[in-house]
């Protein structure tokens, strides 16, 4: 079950401040990277929700994001709907698709779950790859960003769009925490810890899994809508299984089941990719080696490692500080 520790709050605060500073000071490309990070953050948040808290290691989340993006394009660029309506529709479609995938795969476990989700993801990829409606391999453009000019906000400006994405991410983070704190989220944790017992208690576990998968699809769908609006052009590459693989890498690099960790991982991954990409076109090699090293080290990602190593000490210090400032008792949850 998800708990906010002082360490997690601290890291969240640092991330938020860093993102805001970057948003207000960065040049054009810095903003592009920031937006890329924020969208990836949404995706890994969605993935951590199912993988870290439900044990559903999905290899189709990239494809789900693609469903969001393509559904948005279909409703916005092709059907001519207002971007807000189109986004709403796209998120609903993604959630529905995710729910169905979750329901079908709920009976599979371990590697079978991974493979089953992979199959669904590739099915979507193959479809858009060969669908003339969506421009096939060439992709499709003509995508509008949200119109907030009524509020005096111009999202065509990179800085504004970055801040908008940051706000969406913050909302998505709160949404995820709310899910995890709800009865549904608690049941999900129960299912991950002991599915057999949850069944014996009368919980229809596949429904819980499917529901959370669908909710995860909501976040993935939002990520897809933003991704489509960011580049204003999408192509099937977005749905390839390697995108899902990279998202999983980020979740693990960051720290599975910590919510905060994957956000750190996303930032680290995108920055690393761009830095290495500047130096060499063989950056995959370096990322691969780092990935192997991290997983082999058996730590739960960067954040998990920090938590395991310093978490207790930092917490003690922070709670000492809290106690000193407020004489109230510190709750056991902290």
């Amino acid at each position, binding site marked *: 079950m998800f708990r906010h520790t002082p360490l997690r709050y601290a890291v969240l605060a640092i991330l938020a401040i860093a993102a805001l500073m970057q948003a207000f000071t960065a040049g054009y*490309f810095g903003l592009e990277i920031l937006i890329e990070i924020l969208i990836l953050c949404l995706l890994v948040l969605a993935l951590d929700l199912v993988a870290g808290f439900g044990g559903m290691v999905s290899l189709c989340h990239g494809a789900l994001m693609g469903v969001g993006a393509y559904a948005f394009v279909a409703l916005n660029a092709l059907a001519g709907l207002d971007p807000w309506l189109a986004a709403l529709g796209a998120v609903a479609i993604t959630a529905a698709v995710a729910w169905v995938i979750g329901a079908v795969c709920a009976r599979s476990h371990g590697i079978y779950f991974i493979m089953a989700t992979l199959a669904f993801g590739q099915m979507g990829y193959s479809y858009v790859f060969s669908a003339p409606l969506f*421009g096939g*391999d*060439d*992709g499709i453009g003509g995508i509008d960003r949200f119109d907030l000019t009524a509020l005096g906000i111009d999202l065509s400006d990179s800085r504004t769009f970055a801040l908008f994405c940051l706000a969406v991410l913050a909302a998505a983070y709160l949404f995820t925490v709310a899910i995890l704190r709800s009865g549904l989220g608690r049941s999900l944790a129960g299912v991950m810890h002991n599915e057999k017992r949850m069944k014996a208690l009368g919980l229809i576990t596949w429904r819980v899994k499917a529901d959370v998968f669908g909710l995860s699809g909501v976040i993935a769908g939002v990520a897809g809508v933003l991704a489509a609006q960011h*580049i204003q052009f*999408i*192509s099937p590459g977005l749905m390839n299984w390697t995108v899902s693989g990279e998202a999983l890498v980020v979740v693990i690099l960051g720290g599975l089941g910590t919510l905060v960790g994957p956000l750190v991982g996303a930032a680290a991954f995108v920055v690393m990719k761009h830095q290495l990409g500047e130096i060499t076109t063989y950056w995959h090699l370096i990322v691969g080696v780092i990935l192997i090293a991290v997983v082999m080290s058996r730590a739960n990602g960067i954040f998990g490692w920090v938590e395991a190593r310093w978490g207790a000490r930092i917490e003690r210090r922070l709670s000492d500080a809290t106690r000193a400032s407020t004489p109230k008792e510190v709750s056991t949850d902290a």
Partner: protein
Amino acid sequence: MKRATLATLAAATTLALPAATAADTVDIGLLLPFSGVYASLGNEIEAGFALGLATYGNELGVEIILHREDTEVTPAVGLARTRKLILQDDVDAIVGIVSSGVLGAVRDLVDGAGVPLIVANAGNDEATGEACSPWITRVSFSNGQVNRPMGRWMAEQGIETVYTLAPDYAAGRQMIEGFAGAFTEAGGTILGSDFTPFQQTQDFGPYIAQAQASGADALFVFYAGGEAISFVNQYASFGAGDDLPLYGSGFLTSQLYVDAQGPSAEGVITALHYVPTIDNPENAAFVAAFRDATGRTPSEYAVQGYDAARALVEALETGARDRETLGAALRQVSFDGPRGALAIDPATNNVVQPIYVYETVTGEGGMTQIVLAQLPAEADPVNGCAMPSMPTN
């Protein structure tokens, strides 16, 4: 110590100069795939481009600052990198683009921002058709352009019925459309067309068997890259050559792959805007220089890079230095190059160039290609392009 001082002095002079000749530097974005499935094409175009700059650009007195960006294979990445070139690096012109998808993705951006783009490969017909832009000049080819003359030529050779195969994506379909249109217009019949799942088809056996069963006089295909090698090898292994001779768009037997195809490519007749065995002095010089520089024979991709550099240099020679003047000058470019006489069609900004029909045969040091016919250059139909008379912002 002395050398160090000299070096510092030299650095100082070059540093001092730009102030005086600020107008004489141009920033050029080189936008190519350096990783992913098209990496080899990106490298080939870059090599040609570098050679072109070295050959023609030295006496220009203009310092060309290159900004190299990797588009990978994804249009979205290509678009993001183009934005970076335009907004952050503030380039005066962009050269490159291999995949039609990337070109389609960046079209509105370069058009809207008013940045000249020299297309060095991507052949989608719309880019110089209904989606044409005064800012986009193509020195490579268009999908229809390289295949239409072949349709007519094959009909003239007495071939009456043809079966076609191509990968199932926009470029594949356009190549076949261009060919089939001209072929049927000239009196031929298309007996059947299959489009194979792009980049997912590894076994062409089922399709080849299908084509054989159709009883057509000939097979016309478009494949490129790894698929071209697989296809030619698998076609040869079925021994279908006697009943169903293989024709194709020239990318099928590109210089890049023909050695890998080996004897399998023997007798395959294809048409393209360039083949290294074209007999003219410019080509002889180009092939020799390219071999010196890289140790390999140039392909059509190399010549596209080379001519893109030459077009840029020609435009710079007119005194153009910024986006606007370069954009205008690029549309006026014409020269005799390795491909023969090239010009830009003012109606579409697409290159006008001759097309060569050639047969691949076994030569002394491996496979070589004999030019069977040089088909006259003709401008593409306008295809709905309404070109503004002059670039405007």
